[in-house]
């Protein structure tokens, strides 16, 4: 190994170690709190003297004032984020197919508009969105959050899927057209299977965006039984004497589904299914 390679490797570590610490320390902190008793939580130890699973038991049994609707709220989070993921995919895939493959008129305008929406921070749109939803009579209805999340996720999703579908060789479409495929058959039998990796990535993005959403969920939903778990977690801080260990235990449980989703779909996040389609 020569000097340059050692230096290259060292630079990698110099960047990698701080990033790893930056990411892992809060998670470790979260976990540490959730396995500590109320008294020792703020003890400052790197590992509690008497680690306990009692906090998780309380959360799962909904055995605390703030946790009376835990299962209901996690179900809300799940329902809203999965629906957001599915609807975003529906909107974005059809839009990307129409713009990139069918080359519809005005496609460029849609793409530029999609990009432009990101010049406006989502927080600025919170109040207009609230007014719009109230106009539709959807306040405190979970559809309001779903629709808001689809609106926020779609432009990016369309952008990503358009870029990905531009990479699919146009000859595949032409071969399918000569083979007798209608645009809908082309979409279903050729386009969707080949876009699968990107669809998974975009679907997961929209799902996690909705899962992690706090501001819009807080604004649009208010009933204890309709709020998502993220809002419920915020409620923990409404008292002076917050049960930190329970907050952290709930937070830890709240973080598990995204981790599981990433683990399951990690293959799709990087896979390229198109190899072998055309000679490159």
């Amino acid at each position: 190994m020569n000097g340059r390679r050692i230096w290259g490797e060292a630079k990698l570590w110099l960047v990698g170690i701080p990033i790893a610490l930056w990411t892992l320390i809060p998670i470790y902190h979260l976990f540490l709190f959730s396995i500590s008793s109320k008294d020792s939580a703020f003890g400052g130890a790197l590992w509690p003297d008497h680690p306990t699973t009692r906090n998780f038991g309380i959360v799962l049994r909904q055995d605390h004032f703030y946790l009376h609707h835990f299962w209901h709220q996690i179900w809300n989070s799940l329902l809203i984020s999965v629906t957001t993921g599915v609807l975003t995919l529906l909107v974005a895939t059809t839009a990307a197919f129409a713009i990139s493959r069918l080359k519809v008129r005005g496609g460029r305008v849609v793409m530029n508009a999609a990009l432009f929406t990101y010049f406006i921070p989502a927080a600025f749109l919170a109040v207009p969105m609230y007014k719009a939803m109230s106009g539709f009579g959807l306040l405190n209805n979970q559809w309001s959050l779903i629709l808001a999340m689809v609106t926020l996720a779609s432009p990016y999703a369309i952008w990503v899927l358009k870029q990905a579908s531009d990479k699919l060789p146009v000859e595949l479409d032409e071969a399918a057209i000569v083979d007798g495929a209608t645009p809908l058959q082309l979409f279903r039998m050729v386009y969707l299977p080949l876009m699968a990796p990107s669809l998974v990535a975009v679907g997961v993005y929209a799902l996690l965006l909705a899962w992690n959403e706090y501001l819009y969920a807080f604004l649009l939903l208010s009933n204890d039984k309709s709020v998502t778990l993220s809002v419920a977690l915020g409620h923990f801080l409404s008292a002076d004497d917050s049960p930190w260990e329970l907050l952290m235990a709930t937070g830890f449980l709240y973080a598990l589904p995204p981790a599981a989703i990433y683990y399951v779909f990690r293959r799709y996040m990087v896979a390229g299914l198109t190899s072998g389609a055309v000679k490159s």
Partner: protein
Amino acid sequence: MAAVTLKDVRKAFGATEVVHGVGISIQDGEFCVLVGPSGCGKSTLLRMIAGLEEITAGEIAIGGRVVNDIAPKERDIAMVFQNYALYPHMTVFDNMGFSLKLAGVARQEMHKRVSDAAGILGLDELLQRYPRQLSGGQRQRVAMGRAIVRKPQVFLFDEPLSNLDAKLRVAMRTEIKELHQRLRTTAVYVTHDQIEAMTMADKIVVMNAGNVEQIGTPLDLYDNPANQFVAGFIGSPAMNFVPGRVNGDIIDLGQGVSLPSIPGLKLQSGAELVLGVRPEHLAVSDGGLRAEVVVVEPTGADTQIFCKLAGHDINAVVRERHAFRPGEAVHFKPQLVYAFDSASGARLA
């Protein structure tokens, strides 16, 4: 099977016309090759026959039916693409059966037709593989299989061999030719490789800059090129061109080199022209055109001599083995000389 007729077909992208009124008549069962340099419009023409490009003006008929406004799938054609365009998520079987599936052909019939095509192309063992598990030649064969199972009236090939290595290209060339002799389906084949055109075609259409330069059988084009472009494009190594000037009974090539006028050439003294001689029509002799050797390349079967004739690079291919040294003088006796108009390139004699 069907004849394909193109009448004054034009294609414009915006204000730019790229195909300028092309007329071709391809007989039923004929193997027609469109050949020309890149950008000459041959692929666009093929895509117009397929229905993948709209026709700006003119008329295309397949089997006597005008297809200008008919969708590709209704034209009863099958196309083989340069980069294969196989569906990567489908097995070879599904790739080949895709069109039948779309057409609603019964499973059993589809099985039979795919197996038949696979048998013809030697793909039986590969039906359950995916395109990524195949070699370049196998992929190309699957692409052809996909075309065959449809039993179309016309096969369209868009430079199908240009992605293969040289050795495989020669083998596949023979294979496609054999396949055509067996199926006798009308084929339109686009290539920029004149050797492919010469070896495979019943009829060659030479195109340049959106125009048809000449249509004819391979040997017809070789023996009787209509103009300088066709003469230079067909034949390998390419024909030598040397400018000259008529001077009474001789044609002066400059630097004191001249040759007797060509029978049938009716030009007055002082007229300028371009002479063309194929490398294989130059024989080394004791007298005749004097040239200076630059490089000698023996290939075993024959010898290629690169030299300067009156200041112009020319190239001769002779059967005998010669060991000329660079700078040495050599004399050629041209056996067949063509004459072209120096401005228009049209054949004069």
